[in-house]
């Protein structure tokens, strides 16, 4: 429908604007209000701001909260509500109806439609950790504002949130689904490609262990299988494997997607849900560490009190000392688990020299192997294998150090 007269068009626009008053109200970017329960003259003003409506609560401080802490006395408590996850999609019917009011080509249509149309959009990526922290800290502030917890307890909770944040973020970042296409730097300069997973599958329900290689080493060759729950039964003959290959002996799991069953297929891909065993171990360790952290903190406080003369039973002290020792061990495991032997292929002349020294004529020399091991210890190569030392680009410097100790010309 088209209006023949400008006046009619203006009247229609004004009416539409009036009808859209509610929508416009929702788009208010800044409003104030007061919480009930206090005299209006003393009532602090709370603020609602946009995105879309986010409350910043203000309430008079309880004088008792600062009875023993006058230095930090405040008159007003303020708590900022976490912002919403997404912009609200308020697309005014007014804007949509303009198509029937004005004809195509009339500039006012596009301008008004643009003004009243809001597109929903994600404000930012929020993982579970962020969600937990932002909501939890806000509720903590509310509890403090409402007098349910005191300053000291507030501080204790805030301290615990720091622990939770570090642990949960680490768990999330170590989980491949949360770290797709990301790299996690590890100790010793190694690069952990978190998105690269190794998953041994068992197509057709065949036994995953299998005897991977007829020409494999002695002992029947137990294959390494990161899958903790391999399906039972099926052909294959090999010992069902686990992450701890006990009789490795050079056994080999030849893995290709096209391998016929019984076989071991290995999925090395980016961004899959499978988790490498060293990562899952790290996650388990960190969760355990987090769960025991409070207990350890308590024990450390109590042990400190013990030193100051507070009497505790010997059994209590012993138990706490044991817990603290476990915590230290766990932290050592975390450090170890986060720096697995991972590298990118990259060899040089020194690689060949080391290999020839290790395996003269293609045969392993135990004597030279021992010499290399001593040199690796001297060069502080860490917990990496000789094979990785020879073939990993990241270990080039260490490789040359070891070669120099062995006086291999190609490595000097």
């Amino acid at each position, binding site marked *: 429908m088209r209006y023949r007269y400008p006046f009619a068009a203006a009247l229609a626009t004004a009416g539409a604007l009036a009808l859209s008053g509610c929508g416009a109200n929702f788009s208010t970017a800044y409003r104030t209000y007061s919480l009930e329960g206090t005299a209006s003259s003393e009532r602090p003003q709370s603020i609602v701001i946009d995105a879309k409506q986010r409350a910043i609560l203000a309430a008079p401080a309880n004088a008792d909260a600062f009875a023993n802490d006058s230095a930090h006395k405040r008159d007003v408590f303020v708590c900022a509500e976490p912002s919403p996850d997404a912009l609200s999609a308020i697309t005014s019917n007014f804007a949509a109806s303009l198509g029937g009011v004005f004809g195509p080509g009339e500039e006012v249509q596009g301008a008004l439609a643009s003004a009243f149309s809001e597109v929903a959009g994600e404000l930012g990526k929020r993982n579970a950790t962020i969600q937990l922290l932002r909501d939890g800290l806000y509720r903590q502030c509310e509890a403090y504002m409402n007098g349910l917890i005191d300053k000291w307890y507030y501080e204790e909770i805030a301290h615990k949130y720091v622990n939770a944040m570090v642990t949960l973020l680490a768990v999330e970042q170590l989980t491949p689904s949360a770290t797709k296409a990301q790299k996690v730097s590890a100790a010793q300069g190694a690069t952990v*490609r978190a998105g*690269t997973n*190794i998953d*041994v599958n068992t197509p057709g329900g065949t036994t995953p262990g299998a005897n*991977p290689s007829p020409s494999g*080493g002695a002992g029947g*060759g*137990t*294959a*390494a299988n990161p899958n903790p729950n391999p399906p039972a039964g099926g052909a294959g003959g090999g010992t069902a494997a686990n*992450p*701890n*290959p*006990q009789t*490795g*002996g*050079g*056994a*080999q*799991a*030849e*893995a*290709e997607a096209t391998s016929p069953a019984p076989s*071991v297929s*290995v*999925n*090395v*891909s980016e961004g899959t849900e499978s988790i*490498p*065993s*060293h990562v899952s*171990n790290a996650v388990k360790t960190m969760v355990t560490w987090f769960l025991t952290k409070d207990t350890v903190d308590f024990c450390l406080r109590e042990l400190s009190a013990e030193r100051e003369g507070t009497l505790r039973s010997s059994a209590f002290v012993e138990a706490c000392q044991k817990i603290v020792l476990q915590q230290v061990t766990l932290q050592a*495991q975390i450090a*170890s*688990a986060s720096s*697995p*032997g*991972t*590298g*990118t*292929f990259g*060899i040089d002349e020194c690689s060949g020299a080391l*290999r020839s020294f*290790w*395996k003269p004529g293609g045969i*392993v020399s135990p004597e030279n192997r021992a010499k290399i*091991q001593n040199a690796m210890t001297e060069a502080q190569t860490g*917990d*990496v*294998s*000789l*094979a*990785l030392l*020879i*073939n*990993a680009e990241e270990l080039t410097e260490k490789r040359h150090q070891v070669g120099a100790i062995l006086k291999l010309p190609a490595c000097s």
Partner: protein
Amino acid sequence: MADPILELLVDVPADQVANVEQDFKDDDFTVIKKKQQASGKWSVAAAKSAENSG
């Protein structure tokens, strides 16, 4: 029981896979390898029990 030793070497060219694999096997590792579809290179994973290390 100590945790197993796990190592991973990525981007191994096809003509070097045999050498890498043999190195790990000679180092008492169990070897699993997989061709990377995108690059045509190989990933070589190796594992052995900590008791078997040394």
